[in-house]
């Protein structure tokens, strides 16, 4: 009974690797709603200047975890720390260091952009010239200067998200928690929000924990990720570390209630690569031909190109390319695709919902 899970977990968390003290640290976090284990023993860390993706299907526990971090909810057990301050013991200190952008905007009626920012600057204790400077800084950063006098209810979704991000930045926090910041945005607005977030991490050295369903976009700005499903963290770290954890995890133990399909022999499983081939013609013949080749599986045919999973090594890849040319396929492109965040997510999660 007295063996401390905290100590055990300290060992399971990855080392800081010279990245300094973690700005976000979650230790054995639990949040239960009656019988529902919304968050069940979640632990991970994030460091200054890091953009960490927090990924999981709907109902996985992302928002609950983020709400605990933002001091909006009390954990059932465990704790979370922002720059070393506990969200339970020192929520007031945490609030000074943290900017939280929830998935819903929260509009005030009868208020324009500058009044909205001014109110939050006041709420964070800014007075006089400091307050005006803080508002101006955010207006400039989010490029909302020209909309300063516009009612916030009249803003487009993209501009609303910018304003919401601006509100999150008004007190210049060390850590940003962004819950689905790009949800419902058009492609241009998504790119703009993504660029702003990348800038916050790279230029301003903020720690950003961001959840999103658009994994391709997260993959472009995140340097690490935590994958959560059914309230449990399945993997966390950089994409490469996640892949490694995935293999380790499958080798060690199957998850509760899930058949051990892969079995212990998965440790010997060869590396798989997704390859793409583009040809001028004969796509269907190429598809049939590929299906007969060794190491090839999961063949997908597009208008002029085919993608497939290849489980052979580099020499086998080279041999496959040689045989494609020998078989007189009019080859335009032969590309290897690195494992993306999306691939990792799909490989690790099993679509369990609570």
């Amino acid at each position: 009974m007295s063996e401390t899970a905290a100590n055990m977990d300290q060992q399971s968390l990855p080392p800081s690797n010279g990245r300094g003290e973690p700005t976000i640290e979650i230790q054995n976090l639990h949040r239960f709603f009656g019988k529902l284990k919304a968050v069940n023993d979640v632990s991970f860390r994030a460091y200054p200047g890091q953009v960490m993706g927090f990924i999981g299907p709907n109902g996985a526990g992302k928002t609950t975890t983020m709400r605990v971090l933002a001091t909006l909810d009390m954990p059932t057990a465990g704790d979370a720390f922002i720059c070393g301050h506990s969200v339970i013991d020192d929520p007031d200190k945490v609030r000074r260091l943290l900017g939280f952008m929830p998935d819903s905007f929260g509009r005030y009626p009868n208020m324009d952009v500058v009044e909205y920012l001014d109110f939050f600057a006041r709420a964070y204790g800014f007075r006089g010239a400091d307050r005006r400077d803080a508002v101006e800084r955010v207006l400039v950063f989010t490029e909302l200067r020209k909309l300063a006098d516009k009612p916030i209810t009249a803003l487009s979704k993209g501009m609303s998200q910018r304003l919401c991000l601006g509100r999150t930045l008004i007190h210049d926090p060390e850590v940003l928690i962004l819950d689905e910041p790009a949800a419902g945005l058009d492609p241009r607005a998504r790119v703009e929000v993504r660029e702003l977030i990348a800038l916050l991490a790279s230029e301003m050295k903020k720690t950003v924990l961001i959840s999103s369903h658009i994994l391709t976009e997260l993959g472009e700005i995140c340097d690490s990720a935590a994958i959560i499903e059914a309230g449990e963290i399945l993997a966390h770290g950089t994409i490469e570390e996640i892949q490694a954890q995935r293999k380790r995890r499958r080798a060690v133990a199957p998850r509760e209630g899930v058949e051990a399909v892969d079995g212990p022999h998965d440790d010997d499983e060869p590396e798989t690569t997704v390859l793409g081939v583009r040809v001028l013609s004969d796509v269907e013949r190429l598809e049939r031909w590929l299906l007969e080749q060794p190491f090839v599986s999961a063949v997908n045919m597009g208008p002029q190109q085919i993608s497939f999973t290849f489980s052979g090594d580099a020499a086998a890849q080279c041999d496959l390319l040689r045989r494609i040319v020998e078989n007189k396929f009019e080859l335009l492109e032969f590309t290897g695709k690195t494992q993306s965040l999306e691939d990792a997510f799909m490989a690790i999660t099993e679509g369990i919902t609570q």
Partner: protein
Amino acid sequence: MSTIERSIAVLEQVGDHANPILVKETRQSLKSRQFVVTFMLLLAASWFIFTMGIMLGGDAIEFGAIGNEFFWFFYVILAFAVLVLVPFGAYRSLLAEKDQATYDLLSITTLSPRQIVWGKLSSALVQVLIFYSAIAPFIAFTSLLQGFDFLMVAFMLIVTLLMAMLSSIIAIASSAMTKQRQYQGLTSLFVLGALVIQTLVLLSIVGRFVNSFSLVDAEAWWTLAFGVVIAGSYFLLFQKVATAHLTFESDDRISGIRMVFSGQFFLLWIGIFVMTWLAPLTFSINDELVLPAIVVSYVHWGLVGLFAVTEDPYLSRRIRRDLPKGRLRRLLFAPFLQGGNRGFVYVLFHLAILTGISFMLVPMLGSGTWSLDVPIAMTCYLVIILGMACALARWCLLLSSDIRAGHVRVLTLIIVAIASMLPFVPMLWTPAYRFTFNLTMILNPIATLIHLANDGHQATAVIPVLCIGAVVAILVNLRAMRAGLNVILRSDVKPRSLVVIDDVTIWEEEREAQTAELEGRE
């Protein structure tokens, strides 16, 4: 710098130090259609009354003493605006923050829950003052008429302003307590109905009071001062309740409320002693003053006790970390901290004082009133019922964490109701049953107290039984009470460590403290 620029600069400086919510809500209100429409309606109604009054008043306008009647019309409109619309607006304002998910944004700023509550309240005050300023020209007009009592009008306006603030804080506390979205419609309707009824009642009371009120009547002034102090204590209580409901779970939400309850109790008795000491000609220790005060005090501790003794004993690290340093200060502070066992200590302490006051005052009332048996019985009943509730809460929490304090309170009331009805069961099958007090009636507190108040023949048998019951109730909770106090006295915040119990990881230290308290271990 011109005067206007200087004024703007001064306003900016004032605004800088004003509550941010007040600034925001004032800005929003001035732009809101709802406020503009209400304001215009108030003006239109006042203009209508003014015009109709002039037209229909005829010669009476010049020669009749109709100043007060005229004022009444304007006062009714004003009362409806400031006693119904403003508090309901305050209620809706906090609820809307929750609905539109802006409350989350607000609560993660550095604004404290107290600042949020005061911000909402001060914006209600600004609205009240705007309505007052709108109606001011019409009241100024009535002051030119004969029969206008300036002091009385000023008095009514001040009382109405204070009532508007009290109603607003109650409305804000109600909206802070409304958690479930599905009940919002129902609670809104309830709050609106309560505000309308309260306004009608107040209008009738003010009407009667004004007619009988004399500015040279010392008793009226004392009663008024006493009423204002009691209303002030309720204002503070609801402010604490609203703040507690907006406070983060790991913070201390209870001790402020318990302190106000204690304050109300002592205020009542200090008020009575001060009045009888300073105005002996007007007030004296008689049964009309003392007996209602004793009954009110017992009802007060019955209600407060039911909430206090059934609370969850969980104390967060944050609360324990911020405990006073000295042992004596901790001991004095412990009964005010959350937890049923400490709650029972808290109630027992106050009941002991109340019994002492009763022992001191009841013999002074002379013959023909209560004997000391009545306060003894009331104390015993409360100790028995609250002791049972305290033990029930502890046992239920040990059985399952799904059982909440609210369930225990309802269960206690059901047990008391069933026990009260049991002595009357024989009436069901005995058609010729004649009600006479016997010892089984002891299960019914009301019947027993009436019997004792009427100097009943069974008093000598009843009191020992009740005293034994109270002692048993204390003994059943004694270990738990000691444990509840010891948790505070010995509470040192140690480094955190987690344990896994029943597949759930929890903080060892907090679990230990909570379990020890529930089991009455030390």
